[in-house]
């Protein structure tokens, strides 16, 4: 049953079909009881216990949340979703938990919870359990898992889901197996690479991003190297006085510097210029907000 009040940020009547569209979905198994669900260009992970499920996120429209719910019921013999874990706060990832499983427990980082509360969407339920320590070992639906906050990366309170026994690491919208970062939306470049590299020290064989295919540890490291290299090259362009507001100029410059090393990454040719432009502006402006500094916490006015 559709609920036209669950519209996320969309205001136009014409958006209703888009919001309610139910595209196809697929499920593939990553390990015993660990499954990846793909809808469109996004994927998420489900942990299957003896009688219940833990779902990561909800997908980004009411229609997709329903597809997610339906395919889980079909695939896992009607096992209910006991818990939804929010990877982070963005609506296109966790914005429709009420549609996915209104009765489920919601777990999220405390910083994510703050944003969800501030945003105030009825479809994005407030967390029942908020995590304040950087490492939280949990058990739900008979499955053990670890939720890690390595520091600011993308979005607010973005947590990695780590399955040490299965050697699987899941983290949404951080590293990619390609160069399709675009303008690095809501990435906290001041700390991103170092925080991601800290996760690289974990023992895993598969890294599951929120988009595109699963990555190997080598691809994980290459992803860190790529973002770091673009940031360094962007600084060099800036320091030399290149017009860092011109995407085409930065595209030529970064392609010249990085093409040999990273040109094999899908999307490099038509995305690196925009990514470098964004990176250059990090150094021009000094970063954005406290998440780009060593400080913890949120910037809140006293009155």
């Amino acid at each position, binding site marked *: 049953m559709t609920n036209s009040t669950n519209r996320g940020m969309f205001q136009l009547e014409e958006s209703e079909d888009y919001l309610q569209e139910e595209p196809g979905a697929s499920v593939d198994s990553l390990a015993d009881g660990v499954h990846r669900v793909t809808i469109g260009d996004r994927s998420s992970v489900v942990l299957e216990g003896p009688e219940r499920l833990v779902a990561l996120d909800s997908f980004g429209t009411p229609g997709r949340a329903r597809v997610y719910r339906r395919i889980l019921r079909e695939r896992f013999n009607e096992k209910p979703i006991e818990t939804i874990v929010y990877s982070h706060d963005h609506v296109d990832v966790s914005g429709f938990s009420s549609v996915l499983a209104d009765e489920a427990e919601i777990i999220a980082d405390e910083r994510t919870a703050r944003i969800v509360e*501030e945003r105030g969407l009825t479809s994005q339920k407030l967390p029942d359990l908020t995590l304040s320590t950087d490492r939280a070992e949990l058990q739900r639906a008979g499955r053990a898992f670890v939720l890690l906050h390595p520091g600011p990366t993308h979005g607010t309170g973005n947590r990695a889901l780590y399955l040490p026994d299965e050697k699987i690491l899941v983290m949404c919208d951080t590293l990619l197996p390609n160069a399709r970062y675009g303008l690095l939306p809501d990435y906290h470049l001041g700390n991103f690479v170092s925080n991601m590299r800290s996760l690289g020290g974990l023992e895993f064989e598969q890294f599951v991003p929120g988009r595109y295919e699963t990555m190997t540890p080598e691809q994980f490291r290459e992803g860190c190297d790529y973002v770091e290299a673009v940031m360094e090259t962007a600084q060099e362009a800036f320091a030399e006085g290149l017009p860092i507001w011109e995407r085409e100029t930065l595209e030529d410059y970064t392609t010249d510097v990085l093409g040999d090393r990273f040109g094999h990454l899908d999307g490099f040719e038509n995305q690196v210029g925009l990514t470098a432009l964004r990176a250059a502006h990090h150094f021009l402006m000094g970063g954005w907000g406290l998440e780009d500094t060593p400080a913890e916490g949120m910037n809140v006015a006293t009155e």
Partner: protein
Amino acid sequence: MSGNGGEHRGIFTIDGELPIQSFPRDITYRPVEEPVWTASEGIYRTIFIEAENSVIAFDTFSTPGGARSYRDAIERLFPNKPVETIVYSHDHLDHTGYAADLNPDAEIVAHELCNNVIEARESDGQLPASETLSGEWTRLEIDGRTLELIYPGPTHGDGNLAVFLPEQALLFMVDTVIPGVGYTFFPDWHLEPYLDNMRRLLSLDWETFVPGHFWSTDRDGFRKNLKYYEEVRTVAEEALVSGIDPMDLDDVRSYAEEKLNAYEDFFRYNEYVGQNLMRYMLQLKTGGWGTEGVTSARTGELSPGSEVTVTR
């Protein structure tokens, strides 16, 4: 400060020389209405005020060389009045990054939200405030001059202050309303509350708006600029619904040029309309970025709050 001849380095992490930091700038200046002056090097703009015994400078320009050129310009105009106060518009280095080169001994005034980031950032050359403001409206009396410093809520950056000078019917605010379309992909703009927070400033009695870049405008220009943002938001939603991939800049730009061509005479339309639309599409998909980006705009009329007198 390695490898840069002693120049402040901001947050650069690469080694070696940073030529851009040292380039002097040609600062032009003119009175808006004395004692208020405006200064620019072609891209960045600010204001400064001649006070009884000193000069009150706003911001620092974008590099150490720029800050020194700014200092020299003021000194040329007022050789016996040092810059004793610097008021920060907001936290970004390209506007307030180099007080250490403008005058490291000046008193620095900033909103607490701005200063929180500056203190945490520890950028080389950017000095924290010696005096922080809180709340929406502070009247500051400095060296015989009165400044109305207004924080209308999140707009761009952290703690971004608007400077209201009623005697000159002037409003100065940096990196919000700027002539033309939005700058690139709206870096660190808090799009959800932005329009309504900016519209609150229309309740103030000003005629001239001085932005942090390029040229001044009036109330009509201010409104038209905000109207453009509103339009981009609508087109962004239409673009998503039409199946345009927000990560494909070529497709986004084509769609933007088709749907936003009413603005094609806006400054830098060709350069940035695609990136503007891309950013708004991502805004709608993600729901906003950070607390400033998701919070509702503030409501209620702006009204004077605390008064602070700073004796010089």
